[in-house]
């Protein structure tokens, strides 16, 4: 500026600079003002940008699943399975994946409250001191936990019970092992736990046992099963019979699936038992089907397995034990051990006693640890009313839930990823739970709450757990080393429950279950209750990833439905989404129906855990609550219910409407015999056209050629891959309205098709076509082909014409119709993968084959001066897959697993006739049916 500007000059300059300022503010993205502070002292082992892995464990229904948690600059950002852990073997289920989001959930409770007013932890300590004083003086203290396998917690509880004369421990778990335990007692006269070694079984009969569904050992079962389902080794193929009362992922894997009413499962169990030469009291109808199964099991005795699910009554469990005994399974396919649970083995009984004692006025203080019985207790116990009668009620949990609402005190719980603890796996193997981050919302662990009642109220969770394990590991220098080792490995060696060889009770009568033998009420329907494949018993209702996870088979998100068969729906005159009213024993529930092929007629299945009143902003009021129909005498199924249509309609947010293949063959399946006769049947069904004539020579892909195969023979459709992909790739949650509008964002979806009685699942990531139709039509070069065969997305070049999505024959492209990532709570930014761009509004996105993982491996390999080796790149979906159905790698490396699976005669490309030459290919599904059984 000149020294003395005249007016003209001044205005000219002002004008110009204001115009520039306007340009600057308008045209450039403004950066928020932030202070950045360097570490004043560099934390040990932490290199910025380099993830660290810590071994810990997460529980489901009390049982541990070992995980490795990735930490980025102190923030947990992803969860993988722990390869050393027996319940994981490197894989996880969808629940474990989603625990990451639960950790950051801003709707978790954040303060101690008394009568809904904010208090400090010290106030609670004061209250705990007086509770302890009164309990010492002989007042009744009751502690209600969930299923507990934690040795340290059990030790704390036992110490407390010993100290306080009238303290008692109750447990309630809506998805418990009560029938399993009672069945074992019935059969053996003692409590033992049966473990299935599916990898050793040639023939498996599942009686309503969802082996691969949600359970303590489901991931392990799936892995073991998959190891016996390699059609290239036809001699080792096992055979799975499933008799089930509602379609499950286990049924989807069956060679023969029988869709039966819950009460009919016992009939087939008894018929098979008789076929095995077991004397069963009472009627056991003969059926050629059961005889064929029995013959098959008998032919493979010693390698046969009868698995009975928790939903079946103890009598059927006893039958199962007897059948396994007759088949010589104990010691091979069935291993008996001491029980792993430390809490009362029959939670229904335990809760009933608690309610009885409350009603008798014998309970002065009730401490509820984690459990949410007001939601989930059997309706006939009317727990809420009983709870109100307790003079002092203390609740400890992750959320202010339905139970916390009725309690005087509420103490926020720390998440498993932010507290010390321990837990045992299904086989008893103990893991020490270690925190990855200080409690985000000031939560306390169960150990700390129990410590508050003890003589040392200020003991930290770490002290409780570490002291317990150091003592257990023998004390001294050696113990410290073993403790550190246990932390590093994620499990304490040699803690698996010891094997037992229980003997069947000689007086085992094998009489039919009383309830089951009752004749089916005329015109009535049977109800089936099952844990929700995504929400479990309702504890995950606040988790948006799980709410939006398309449930296996139904593909329903955000809520549940009354699942009915086509025949039942036709009789009632209802269609998908029509609301029906189901009445049983004076209780009524209204729910939209969902027609599911494979559902037995006149059976209505409810998934528990939806319709919660208090589950934060995410889970409250989503779906309907089925618990009011569930009574203590009918935990898993009930007869004599009535159903009627109401005329109302509720839209069902499903991600797949058509479960039939419409005469097309996206999934190609066959039998072992057919496969051996014509191994290449799948590829022959739809040959690729010859390469098109081109003026330029085809690209050689001389470096890496990334490719993926998905083995449909072993994919259970569990959908853990969907959540793993969401976590890895910062895929936003869009909400029910957007799912209804057809805008779910999952980069990987699992398609389900029903063909007769067979159910097929097919995960669909991006196919990474070598001749990609999407690339041709993009006007801005926002989707381009990489030199290694990846179909890349350039987000900041995308203007959002959506032409690519239209032209994708596989419909794998996902569009940000709104600014979905911006709608997430701010704190979710902490859990995002820093290696993956967060997409903005108006941009197309899709599966990248986890390109960030490829690049990380490439950088490592370049540092070491060599090529990337097979197995150094795993995609998120591959890493999480319990059955290892997904294999990723370099197709140019002949030794790579993916190159070998691509060479399988079962390998086929989806829509090969279009000439897209996809890099993702499928291995045809091969079943191993019993030739004696038609269907």
């Amino acid at each position, binding site marked *: 500026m000149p020294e003395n500007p005249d007016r003209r000059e001044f205005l000219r300059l002002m004008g110009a600079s204001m115009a520039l300022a306007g340009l600057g503010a308008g045209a450039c993205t403004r950066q928020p003002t932030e202070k950045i502070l360097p570490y004043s002292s560099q934390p040990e082992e932490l290199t910025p940008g380099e993830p660290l892995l810590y071994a810990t464990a997460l529980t489901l229904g009390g049982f541990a699943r070992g995980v490795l948690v990735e930490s980025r600059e102190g923030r947990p950002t992803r969860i993988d399975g722990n390869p050393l852990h027996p319940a994981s073997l490197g894989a996880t289920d969808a629940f474990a994946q989603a625990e990451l989001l639960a950790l950051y959930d801003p709707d978790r409770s954040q303060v101690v409250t008394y009568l809904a007013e904010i208090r400090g932890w010290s106030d609670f300590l004061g209250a705990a001191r007086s509770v302890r004083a009164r309990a010492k003086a002989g007042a009744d203290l009751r502690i209600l936990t969930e299923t507990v396998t934690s040795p340290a917690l059990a030790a704390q509880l036992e110490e407390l019970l010993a100290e306080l004369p009238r303290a008692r421990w109750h447990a309630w778990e809506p998805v418990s092992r009560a029938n399993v335990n009672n069945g074992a007692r019935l059969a053996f006269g003692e409590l033992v736990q049966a473990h299935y070694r599916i990898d050793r079984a040639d023939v498996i009969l599942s009686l309503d046992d969802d082996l691969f569904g949600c359970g303590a050992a489901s991931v392990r079962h799936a892995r073991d099963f998959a190891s016996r389902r390699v059609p290239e080794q036809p001699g080792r193929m096992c055979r799975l019979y499933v008799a089930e009362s509602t379609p499950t992922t286990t049924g989807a894997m069956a060679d023969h699936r029988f869709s039966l009413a819950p009460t009919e499962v016992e009939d087939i169990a008894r018929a098979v038992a008789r076929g095995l030469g077991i004397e069963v009291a009472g009627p056991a109808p003969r059926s050629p089907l059961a005889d064929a199964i029995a013959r098959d099991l008998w032919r493979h005795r010693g390698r046969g397995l009868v698995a009975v699910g928790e939903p079946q009554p103890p009598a059927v469990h006893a039958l199962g034990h007897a059948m396994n005994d007759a088949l010589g399974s104990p010691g091979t396919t069935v291993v008996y051990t001491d029980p792993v649970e430390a809490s009362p083995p029959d939670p229904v009984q335990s809760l009933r006693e608690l309610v009885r004692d409350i009603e008798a006025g014998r309970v002065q203080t009730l401490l509820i640890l984690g459990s949410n019985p007001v939601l989930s207790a059997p309706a006939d116990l009317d727990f809420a009313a009983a709870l109100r009668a307790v003079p002092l009620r203390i609740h400890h949990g992750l959320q202010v839930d339905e139970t916390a609402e009725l309690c005087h005190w509420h103490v926020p719980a720390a998440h498993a990823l932010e507290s010390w603890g321990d837990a045992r796996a299904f086989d008893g193997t103990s893991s020490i739970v270690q925190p990855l981050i200080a409690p985000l919302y000031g939560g306390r662990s169960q150990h700390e709450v129990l410590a508050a009642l003890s003589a040392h109220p200020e003991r930290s969770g770490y002290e409780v757990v570490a002291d317990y394990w150091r003592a257990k590991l023998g004390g001294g220098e050696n113990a410290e080393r073993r403790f550190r080792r246990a932390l590093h490995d994620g499990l304490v060696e040699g803690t698996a429950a010891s094997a037992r060889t229980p003997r069947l009770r000689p007086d085992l009568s094998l009489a039919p279950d009383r309830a089951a033998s009752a004749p089916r009420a005329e015109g009535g329907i049977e109800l089936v209750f099952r844990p929700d494949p995504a929400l479990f018993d309702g504890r995950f209702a606040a988790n948006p990833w799980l709410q939006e996870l398309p449930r296996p088979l139904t593909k329903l998100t955000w809520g549940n439905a009354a699942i009915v068969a086509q025949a039942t729906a036709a009789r009632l005159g209802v269609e998908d989404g029509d609301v029906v009213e189901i009445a049983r024993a004076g209780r009524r529930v209204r729910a939209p129906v969902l027609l599911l092929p494979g559902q037995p007629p006149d059976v209505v299945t409810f998934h528990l855990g939806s319709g919660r009143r208090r589950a934060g902003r995410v889970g409250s009021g989503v779906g309907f609550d089925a618990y009011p129909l569930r009574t203590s005498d009918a935990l898993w199924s009930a007869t004599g219910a009535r159903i009627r249509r109401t005329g109302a309609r509720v839209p069902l947010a499903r991600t797949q409407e058509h479960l039939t293949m419409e005469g097309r063959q996206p999934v190609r399946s066959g039998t072992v015999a057919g496969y051996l006769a014509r191994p290449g049947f799948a590829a022959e069904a739809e040959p690729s056209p010859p390469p098109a004539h081109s003026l330029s020579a085809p690209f050689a892909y001389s470096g890496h050629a990334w490719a993926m195969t998905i083995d449909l023979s072993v994919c259970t459709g569990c959908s853990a891959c969907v959540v793993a992909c969401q976590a890895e790739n910062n895929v936003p949650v869009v909400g029910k309205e957007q799912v209804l509008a057809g805008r779910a964002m999952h980069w990987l979806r699992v398609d389900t098709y029903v063909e007769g009685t067979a159910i097929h699942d097919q995960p669909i990531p991006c196919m990474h076509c070598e001749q990609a*139709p999407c690339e041709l039509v993009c006007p801005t070069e926002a989707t381009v082909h990489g030199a290694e065969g990846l179909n890349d997305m350039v987000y900041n070049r995308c*203007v959002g*014409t959506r032409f690519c999505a239209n032209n994708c024959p596989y419909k794998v492209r996902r569009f940000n*119709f709104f600014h979905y990532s911006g709608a997430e709570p701010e704190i979710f930014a902490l859990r995002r993968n820093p290696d993956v761009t967060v997409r903005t509004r*108006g*941009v197309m996105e899709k599966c990248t084959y986890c390109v960030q993982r490829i690049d990380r491996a490439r950088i490592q390999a370049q540092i070491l001066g060599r090529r990337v080796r097979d197995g150094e790149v795993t995609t998120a979906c591959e890493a999480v897959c319990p059955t290892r159905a997904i294999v990723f790698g370099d197709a140019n490396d002949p030794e790579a697993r993916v190159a070998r699976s691509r060479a399988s005669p079962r390998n086929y490309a989806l829509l090969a006739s279009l000439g897209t030459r996809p890099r993702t290919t499928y291995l045809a599904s091969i079943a191993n049916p019993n030739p004696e059984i038609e269907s």
Partner: protein
Amino acid sequence: MKGPESEVLGPLRGHDFASVEDRIGGIVLARKAPRAWTAGIAVALLLLLGFLYGTTYLLAVGVGIWGVNAPVGWGFAIINFVWWIGIGHAGTLISAILLLLRQPWRTSINRLAEAMTLFAVACAATFPALHLGRPWLFYWLVPYPDTMGLWPQFRSPLVWDIFAVSTYGIVSLLFWFVGLVPDLAAMRDRARGRAARMAFGVLAMGWRGSAEHWRSYETAYLLLAGLATPLVVSVHTVVSFDFAVSVIPGWHSTIFPPYFVAGAIFSGFGMVLCLVIPLRRLYRLEDFITDKHLDAMAKLLLASGLIVAYGYGMEAFMAWYGGGTYEVYAQTNRFRGPYAPTYWSLLVCNVLVPQLLWSRRVRRAAWALFAISLIVLAGMWLERFVIVVTSLHRDFLPSSWGMYAPTRWDWVLLVGSLGLFGALMFVFVRLLPMISIFEVRASLPQAHVERGREGGQ
């Protein structure tokens, strides 16, 4: 030459050079517009306001306010685009091709048709930009030397669209303007207000009507007509490539270019009739736009409708004859799928109803013609709905099939674009002579007797 002209223009009874100019120019120079005009533009501006409201909300929030979703990535925006572009075809066809084919009856309607073309192209051009996920980056589709060193991806039909539509828009504008120049000069000379004289004067670019001017004009106009003629075919051919180049069954079809062009002409004539009939009534222009004009346009409507019908037939036949699973399904899904009602109504609108035009009585009944052309316009919009939505909503994998339902914002923009079009049209008829004065004068019998006085002012 004289025979057919006087046959078509027979009812120009009693008009001479002055009366033609009075009647047509008077509409523009009159102080007060007819009440119907005021009411009409009020409605159009109201709808335009809705368009602006819908657009503002769209830009603020995102295309998620529309019904587009995962299998159906394109919805009303693309349907509207194709529909408006199609309508924009009649202007050039009438002006250029009929000029080259020496169809003198075009003189009464070419100005209106050309204006209609421009406004339809303007309406159409808004949609491809608005339908983008990030509309503020629409210029990335345009080849310009940017700092990133990136060009558009020239294999994409969307880039071809940019060229086709912008070329068409520019040539149409030039053609229309060049045709206006002698009339602008006439208006300049007649206008009384200073502002109007100035405005017309500037736009007339110094036209004095000298023989030299006329010679240059004739040459330029003929050249432009020659230039515009291939565009009539090219624009909608390229638009059809948006679909035909893809792999989607129901889109991937070689019949699309001619089928789209025929459809475009069909809807274009529909729109011309739709505009001409009420305007003729409103401004009492029956002397200039006679029943014979309507009859000729109705014949063209029928002819192009028959080509369109043939297209529908061939599409179904080829799917059946080809026997491909997906193609056959795409076709049967149109017949019997959830959107079957739209398919059958488009057949009624575009194939069945135009058959009435075989009757001379219908062709000469203005209001019947008006109703038929409205039905044709609706039918052509439905045709684009069927092409865009029913092909996308069920393509290859049954797992990804879905449904599409427009939201209220889709309707706001469709109806709002009618408002935009209407407002532009009303402004045009108020400010510029809607019929070419000098061309009508040139076709008066007097012009042929006293050629020397032609154009002399």
